[in-house]
């Protein structure tokens, strides 16, 4: 009897240890996505950001959350594609920062104006190998659900997003066409300058209420 009990104990301890190790080692991609998304939704709902003068504060907080789950260096690298090898480390950093700002300003305004208390429904997560995953979600709306698919990769045990597909249209691929066209004729600095100009424009717009 005693042997049996200790055997049971060992199994229990092992499985406990196993679970804990698993949880620490790798948060599931869907859970890794859900946490910051929930935070963004909470920020969008928070009544303390209602006034026009609070918009910049709300934007900064949301962008900080987004930067944790989105890897803009990876997004930039994949968006620029083959031309990325022509970018110096300095240009790469500048490009990633600017592109992140640009996307943030543009979509923050859109989300803020369009948000009507929707929640996100998490549909599925599919692992592709050890370090890639696709998480499918949708935003239910009376006028039709909006399907959003996140492409994630694991880096140093952390899952981060490198592309988003809305109705099957990849953000990365959509910008790749546009950036390639510009890089066919112009150099990386010129592209960065264009993007900066556009980001500044969106920053001005995003501070305004609709």
């Amino acid at each position, binding site marked *: 009897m005693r042997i049996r009990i200790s055997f049971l104990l060992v199994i229990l301890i092992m499985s406990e240890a196993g679970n804990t190790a698993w949880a620490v080692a790798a948060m599931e991609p869907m859970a890794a996505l859900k946490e910051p998304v929930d935070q963004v939704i909470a920020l969008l709902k928070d009544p303390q950001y209602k006034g026009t003068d609070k918009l910049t504060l709300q934007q900064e907080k*949301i962008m900080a959350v987004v*930067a944790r789950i989105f890897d803009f260096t990876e997004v930039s690298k994949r968006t620029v594609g083959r031309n*990325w090898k022509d970018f110096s480390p300095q240009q790469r950093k500048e490009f990633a920062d600017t592109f*992140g700002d640009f*996307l943030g300003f*543009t979509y923050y305004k*859109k989300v803020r104006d369009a948000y009507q208390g929707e929640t996100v429904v998490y549909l599925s997560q599919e692992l592709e190998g050890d370090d890639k995953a696709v998480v499918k979600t949708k935003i239910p709306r009376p006028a039709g659900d909006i399907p959003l698919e996140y492409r994630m990769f694991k880096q140093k045990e952390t899952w981060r997003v490198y592309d988003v597909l809305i109705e099957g*249209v990849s*953000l990365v691929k959509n910008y790749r066409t546009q950036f390639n*066209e510009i890089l066919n004729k112009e150099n990386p600095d010129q592209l960065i300058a264009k993007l900066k100009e556009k980001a500044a424009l969106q920053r001005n717009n995003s501070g305004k209420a609709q």
Partner: protein
Amino acid sequence: MPGGSTDFVRRMLAVLLAGCLLLAVCGAAAAGEPDSLNQTATAGEEEEEDLDYLEEDEVKEPAVQVADPLAFWNRAMFYFNDKLYFWALKPFCQGYNYVLPEAVRIGIRNFFVNTAAPVRLTNCLLQGRIFAAEAEWSRFLLNSTVGMLGFGNPADQYPDLPLHPEDLGQSLGTYGLGHGLYIVWPVYGPSSLRDSLGDVGDGFLHPRGYLDSLMLSAGLWTFEKVNDTSLRIGDYETLKEAALDPYQAVRDAYVQFRMKRVAE
């Protein structure tokens, strides 16, 4: 407008809108990110290895490019449609939205979607998808009766009866036919040679084509288009703002969207 393009415009907008909700939300903050410098440095060191993902991407999901020999015409039409939207369609829809509550407009959209069931059903069959065709048939029966001529959408309550937005352009795509070339029609919007042919073919399957009066058909088409647009004002604006070249952004999104539809 038969299946393809309209649907596309609608979805696309939804898309951009959507982009919004999250992705979007997401954008910005790369700037404040503490380790983006490190990552960039790493990327620099592993330059060769760095580009592996491109090939991997190419194999898994080849980038579909579309021939655009009519770019000059297409850009002009894109400009025309853009102005049509901002000067006429959008202001009209804003008034329309003021008069009709969203629930009513969704009902109207349901009605139009339901009347296009023959197009979807036939194309499910053309693609050899018997069960999808059966689901379309069941949807049509249920929504036309319980759903009061299709204004209601009770079929949506049944996960086994999803809408199959198939059209002839997609059927041709499943046979291996490519887009041929990209074309932007005035008023009608972005399309391709294949999808335009498909839309013409689908026109023969759509009940609207069998009305006695051409004016009535055209009027109903316009009504459907306006009603659809009224449900997604603001999406096109975001798409345009988010693009460096809105023309290219729409063209690429069209091709990606249709590719996904064909694959489904």
